[in-house]
């Protein structure tokens, strides 16, 4: 029972890191980016390839995955995404589906369609049991929770305490007024998109062991990222965090207790929440 809760929390934390970039893109640019999972996949494959071919240790590869995907995100934002901001949502959806298809096919072509395995370092492999085995904690999952919690706190501080955070919040609330006040909205967009993609890449690298990593990763988890954002709303960090934890726990518990239903529970829960509160559970009432 407690073990399930623990696994669910680890899963949820991972989903939070993976999806937070999507929440920011949506809140800031009002852009529905279905290709977000492709950045996560890029992070995962960066780690795998660096470990296999360059022989770098896992702990070096994970930060590198962040850097590589952040750069990739910045490049894509400046060349492609920027042109799509003012288009209708349908165009954005089709554009990002197109990107996803391209990412899936490219990875399939260059790396192959097999599931990639990550060799974890020894000290992350074990498992600690507390309360006579009622709570079994894998060390790796413990590390994931730790890293993600630190990241969540850092992000929150960044958003609330720094000048950049204030500019970002101003741009999310009202882009035109923010631009009028002399905030370089374009630069904010670029850097936020890069950080969001980087976080997705980091999540993909950390999650490769838990979520699995193969070319259809972006399509498989797209719905999960979208759930986190749609349920959590885009105006705060805590919304997506709570939504991600809820989703993680519901998914793990659902698959354990009623395996016959599979992912059914998660989808049904999402539909119920969205029918009840179409703007998301934690959204402010109006924008």
């Amino acid at each position, binding site marked *: 029972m407690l073990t399930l809760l623990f696994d669910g929390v680890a899963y949820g934390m991972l989903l939070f890191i993976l999806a937070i970039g999507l929440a920011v893109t*949506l809140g800031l640019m009002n852009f529905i980016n279905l290709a977000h999972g492709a950045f996560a996949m890029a992070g995962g494959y960066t780690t795998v390839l660096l470990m296999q071919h360059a022989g770098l240790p896992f702990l070096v590869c994970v930060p590198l995955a962040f850097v590589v995907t952040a750069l990739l995100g910045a490049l894509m934002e400046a060349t492609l995404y920027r042109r799509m901001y003012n288009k209708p949502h*349908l165009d954005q959806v089709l554009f990002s589906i197109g990107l996803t298809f*391209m990412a899936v096919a490219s990875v399939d072509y260059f790396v192959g369609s097999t599931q990639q395995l990550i060799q974890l370092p020894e000290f992350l492999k074990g498992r600690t049991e507390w309360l006579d085995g009622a709570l079994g904690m894998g060390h790796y999952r413990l590390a994931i929770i730790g890293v993600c919690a630190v990241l969540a706190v850092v992000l929150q501080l960044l958003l609330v305490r720094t000048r950049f955070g204030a500019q970002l919040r101003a741009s999310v609330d009202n882009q035109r007024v923010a631009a009028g006040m002399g905030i370089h909205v374009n630069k904010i967009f670029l850097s936020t998109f890069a950080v969001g993609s980087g976080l997705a890449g980091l999540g993909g690298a950390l999650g490769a062991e838990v979520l699995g990593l193969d070319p259809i990763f972006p399509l498989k988890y797209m*719905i999960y990222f979208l759930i986190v954002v749609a349920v959590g709303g885009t105006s705060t960090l805590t919304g997506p965090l709570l939504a991600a934890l809820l989703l993680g726990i519901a998914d793990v518990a659902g698959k354990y207790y009623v395996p016959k239903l599979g992912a059914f529970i998660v989808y049904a829960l999402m539909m119920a929440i969205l029918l009840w509160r179409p*703007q998301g559970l934690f959204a402010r009432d109006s924008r």
Partner: protein
Amino acid sequence: MSAANSLAALAKPRWWEAALWLLLLALPWLWPTHALLISEITIIALFAMSLDLILGYSGIVSLGHAAFFGMGAYTAALFAKHLHPDPLWGLLVALLVTAMLGAVCSLGVLRGSDLTRIMITLGVALILQELANKLDWLTGGADGLQGVIMGPVLGRFEFDLYGQTAAWYALVVCGLVFVLLRRLVHSPFGYSLQAIRDNRLRAQAIGIPVHARLVAVYTLSAALAGLAGGLQAQTTGFASLDVFGFDRSADVLLMLVIGGTGWLWGGLIGAVVFKTLHSVISAWTPQYWTFWLGLFLVLLMLVGRERLLRPWTWGRTS
């Protein structure tokens, strides 16, 4: 000229449309070796038309229209297998069942933002796929529903191996739907939908019952998608999980965008172009054809989809 007269004038079929439909109906006879392909394209064209009704005319972005297609396919297949092999009854049942499903789902797309609507439509398709997968005693699960044997259409025309009957059957159904929709989109009802699409607030202010109209059109669109699904199951004698797939919803969106939204011929043209593209590219590179499809989508969106059918504007910058 009064408003009613001018609407009626627009609704009148053009001579080239009638001629084109006659040509289409003659296709299985002119080109019997490709009858299977003809019926396949006709069915997805019907599916695309049903999506156009909500996307092009009412402005609802749906990423899960395959939910209704799949529901129609499974309903028709199950009906034929367990109750009655007559195709027309099967189609009617598929139509009614998906209409009911559509009416229920329409409540979810009334409120919220585009993202909420995308999630709801996607969610319905995923839930149905999951259900069809898990209820394997009924649907055959991941193996698909096999052993569907159809009776002759109207009690006279047996489905043949080369698919000529199937092609005619699909073409006639699709043609009837086309005539019906042509009448519908040029009716006051159709214009009120376009008003809702262009400005929901203003439409409400001039007294259009926005919610009731959206429920009605979503239900109709779902029913027609179900009809397409039913046709697919009947002409192939098979229903499998991929009828609910995300790929199918995405493909049909793409077809519509290629052919042009808010225009009934758009679905038909898009379906033909898409299928041709598909077969050309996948003959050349079977495993990686989605890459080229994706590239095409990205470029199309960067250039602007409204310009695809207007080549003379390609040189201009937006």
